[in-house]
């Protein structure tokens, strides 16, 4: 049920893909899962000179927007966080629930990088 509410709120505003481990807060309120390569740590090297996406030329690069927008936020430094690999088991689940339970912060044992 809560997944449906979350999707209803976040899909129209952010283009939410329901990855279940939301990082919008640290990416300038720009969903990185909108990036065709689903990059969560910054733009790839293929961004076009006009700031548009390598894969979808009609779309502005998600990360060009994320960098711009995050600079207007009081917590701008969080853009530089290193975000761990996506846990594909969480796809389709509610990130609100996963945030509450701490499930979205679980990383593989071998993941050693501090954000």
């Amino acid at each position, binding site marked *: 049920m809560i997944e449906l509410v979350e999707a209803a709120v976040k899909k129209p505003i952010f283009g939410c893909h329901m990855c279940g481990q939301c990082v919008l807060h640290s990416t300038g309120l720009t969903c990185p899962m909108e990036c065709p390569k689903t990059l969560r*740590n*910054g733009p*790839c*090297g293929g*961004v076009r000179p006009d700031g548009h996406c390598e894969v979808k030329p009609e779309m502005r*690069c998600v*990360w060009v927007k994320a960098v711009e927008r995050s600079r207007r936020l009081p917590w701008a430094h969080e853009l530089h966080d290193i975000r761990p690999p996506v846990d594909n088991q969480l796809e389709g689940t509610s990130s609100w629930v996963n945030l509450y339970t701490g499930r979205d912060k679980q990383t593989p*044992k071998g993941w050693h990088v501090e954000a």
Partner: protein
Amino acid sequence: MSRLEDALAAGRFAVTAELLTVDAGGLDAVQERFAPYADYVDATNATDNTSAHAHASPLAVAIALKQLGMEPVMQLTCRDRNRIALEAEIAGAALHGIENICCLTGDDVTAGDEPEARRVFDLDSIQLLALGVAMANGTYLSGRKIDPAPHLFLGAVENAGAPPFDYRVDRALKKVRAGARFLQLQVGFRPEQTEAFMREAVDKGLAAECALIPSICLVRSPGALRFIDANVPGIEVPVAIIERCERAADPEAECFEVACELAEHARSLPGVAGLHLISFRREAGIARLCQRLGIPTRETRADSRPVAV
């Protein structure tokens, strides 16, 4: 310690090259590609399905290079493999004594000749670097042990010539935090962009923490420059450069001049640790470019340390 790691650790100017892609022809095909510049380079990159076109795999080519006495840098992209396959490639490389691994996101499948393929991108390049560090520390991502832990010299690529320009050094710093010890910069035809990137890299301490290696591209014709501009993601060739080469009495020689000028400029920038040379069927040009810039052969560089070329 790999030859490249050794050169960079000793503060010697490093030269790397990019092996032309291989599809067939056995070890001879690999040998003939690097033979013209073998004396000048510390290592040669085995590319990973460049521009999303399938070729012999980077691991296979890296093993071939090693068998032929050339030190490989194995490129590894996130486009075609999930994390399990990436781990298998790194473990496989380490098994063969391949230490230099360059971690890239990878051009999208739509840049290639099989755009209908599924893109993977299970990890991004920063996560791949961190995975490499985990393996060098003796575990897979799951925490399962690798014993003995392989020695790896991990690097990545950064593109100073793609937006958002004012975020590229910060992104490179993220790569260093994730584990990059060298960064081969994407080919750029705008020296002012390389210069701005390097200035910020020195100011923010990036150049002190990681070996920065700008790339220079050698082509035979203005047509090749137009092709790169139109088809290679993330590389823009200014019209002025293309037209200058087209107007020249000897367009091929003019293309070489452009590469020499860009190389000379990049080498002069504070913080630059070496050059990465990419030729499109112009392998002899790499040796000529080194001679022209007064870069001695690898052995001479190693004998006369520290060398400031």
